[in-house]
């Protein structure tokens, strides 16, 4: 879950646009994450197909889900992350894709499709768009200054060992504000399954966090992008693409801040954002044209080059900028890939336990 404020802004804009929604066959309503498409993708699509795209953005899965579950969202294409998608499929939110209208389907990464079967059995409802990992973003110089040359910047030890955190406190550490994406990292670090639903194990994860809590500057899901870039904080546990964005910003600003990103060697969580078509979409035909367009290798590579997240399109990989393609933080090596886990679709009781733990960790109550 990202910032609420941005969400409100997006919501109010969305409401204005959705109000003007019509069932015009030449208009397609797309609801995607903010900053999650190349600048020219939509213009190129409109030029090529003559279909006009009304493009709205959200910045939290929860907001998207509330709209979808209330029904009649008015969108033809939406992009939930995989654990949310799994639940939404069960709730009957989406329609099956017509693969005869998606000839570019063969470009997708077969291994990835297989890995996504737990969320979408048979890959019937969704197409992987972008994916990424949740790892360690850090200010190279400051962390070295605080913890010395051999600072464990490639390990969860960096943030889960209280003695490291006590030192890092002076320069600032942030975590994503998302219990279901961060608590699994603590579970995994403690040697439990990251998708554990055992109350005792979740309790241990909470205790681990309580120990380091006094040294955490804040929990937030987007503020760290600018704070890491301008040196306000020195470690951010965040989304890979966002940290690469932060790195690019620091380079642009030429402020002497060098941002690094590592997928911890113990393993890390990954998220997949999935393209899907709501069951009550008005323009199913155009939705399929759009999905097929997005699966074109050149289009997908262009988006990856812009947003700095890897995509789920195997044919697009050779077209991605070499610097990104060969960066193990963006495209993990096969050994690292083996240690990456996905977030499961949680049972309501587990979800509730995690939310409650998170409140306790953050507010002490």
């Amino acid at each position, binding site marked *: 879950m990202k910032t609420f404020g941005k969400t*409100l802004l997006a919501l*109010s804009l969305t409401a204005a646009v959705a109000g003007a929604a019509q069932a015009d066959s030449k208009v397609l309503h797309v609801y995607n994450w903010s900053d999650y498409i190349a600048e020219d993708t939509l213009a190129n699509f409109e030029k090529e197909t003559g279909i006009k795209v009304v493009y709205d953005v959200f910045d939290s899965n929860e907001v998207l*889900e509330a709209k979808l*579950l209330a029904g009649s969202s008015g969108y033809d294409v939406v992009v939930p992350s995989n654990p949310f998608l799994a639940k939404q499929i069960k709730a009957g*939110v989406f329609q099956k894709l017509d693969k005869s209208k998606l000839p570019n389907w063969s470009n997708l990464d077969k291994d990835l499709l297989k890995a996504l079967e737990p969320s979408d059995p048979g890959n019937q409802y969704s197409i992987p768009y972008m994916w990424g990992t949740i790892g360690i973003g850090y200010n190279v110089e400051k962390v070295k200054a605080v913890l010395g040359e051999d600072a464990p910047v490639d390990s969860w030890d960096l943030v889960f060992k209280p003695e490291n955190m006590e030192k890092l406190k002076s320069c600032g550490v942030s975590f994503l504000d998302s*219990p279901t994406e961060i608590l699994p990292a603590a579970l995994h670090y403690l040697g439990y399954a990251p998708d554990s639903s055992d109350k005792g194990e979740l309790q241990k994860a909470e205790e681990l966090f309580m120990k380091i809590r006094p040294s955490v500057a804040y929990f937030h899901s987007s503020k760290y992008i600018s704070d890491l870039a301008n040196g306000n904080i020195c470690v951010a546990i965040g989304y890979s693409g966002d940290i690469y964005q932060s790195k690019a910003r620091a380079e642009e600003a030429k402020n002497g801040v060098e941002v690094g990103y590592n997928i911890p060697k113990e393993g890390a969580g990954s998220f997949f954002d999935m393209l899907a078509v709501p069951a009550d979409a008005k323009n199913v035909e155009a939705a399929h044209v759009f999905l097929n367009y997005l699966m074109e290798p050149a289009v997908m590579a262009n988006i990856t080059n812009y947003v700095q997240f890897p995509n789920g399109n195997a044919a697009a990989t050779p077209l991605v900028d070499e610097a990104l393609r060969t960066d193990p933080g963006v495209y993990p090596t096969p050994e690292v890939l083996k240690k990456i886990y996905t977030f499961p679709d949680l049972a309501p009781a587990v979800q509730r336990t995690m*939310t409650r733990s998170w409140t306790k960790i953050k507010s*002490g*109550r």
Partner: protein
Amino acid sequence: MKPSKLARYLPSGRHAVIGIPFLWLFMFFLLPFVIVLKISFAEADVAIPPYTEIYEWADNKLTLLLNFGNYIFLTEDALYLSAYLGSLKVALFSTLLCLLIGYPMAYAIARAPKSQQTVLLLLIMMPTWTAILIRVYAWMGILGNNGLLNSLLMGIGLIDTPLQILNTNIAVYIGVVYSYLPFMILPLYANLVKHDLSLLEAASDLGSSNFNNFWKITVPLSKNGIIAGSMLVFIPVVGEFVIPELLGGPETLMIGKVLWQEFFNNRDWPVASALAVVMLAILIVPIILFNRNQAKELEGRP
């Protein structure tokens, strides 16, 4: 010709006039409330919408299934109680602060020359022409660690390190008092401007001091304005969500945030609805007091 008995029951123009506010209340208060009440007795489900139906019609039998589990659940975790108390505390102190700041302002406007009063009132209302979200965002820019306030204080050498104001309860109070101050000032002004100043003159003639005049005459006469303003601030602040979310920190625990978590993070619309119903029940007490006061005001009694 005498109007027939039937005509008395047919809608007339007068009924239509009275009917509009009732229709409004029905559509925008009662109906949504009944829907929320209904959801609060359901169970969470993986479906659209994400809760079960509370009634069933089968074999000519209507079955009503009320699940009180959501309400019982609220009593089992101290989080909910402390969130309600947190909201009430913020609302209470914000109301007091609004009163402390708003009363002198309203008093000054009411005693200003008639020609200036409109301008002064306009100045109070003008900020509300901008969306609340934008104004709260502006406060984030003012209160931040490298925001306007800290830069200014550091610039003039008053402090060396930035004051941590943003993301604390202090920022929440600043945001709330700022946003709701007009709702305190306007009813107070409306009340103060009607006062008969000859009462004060008479008291002075009899040797009362200005201070005494204020406490013994002006304040008691403005009681209704104080109550109206306080209610207009207190009631919405209890349910406030945007301001604490944007300006508050992790220690800010208010019911609006807990509601959001139940609704969005836990996907539990029934528990979220139960929380909202309980909040309404808590607010009904001050609302009834407010209405009673309004009724008195209309009757012209002090």
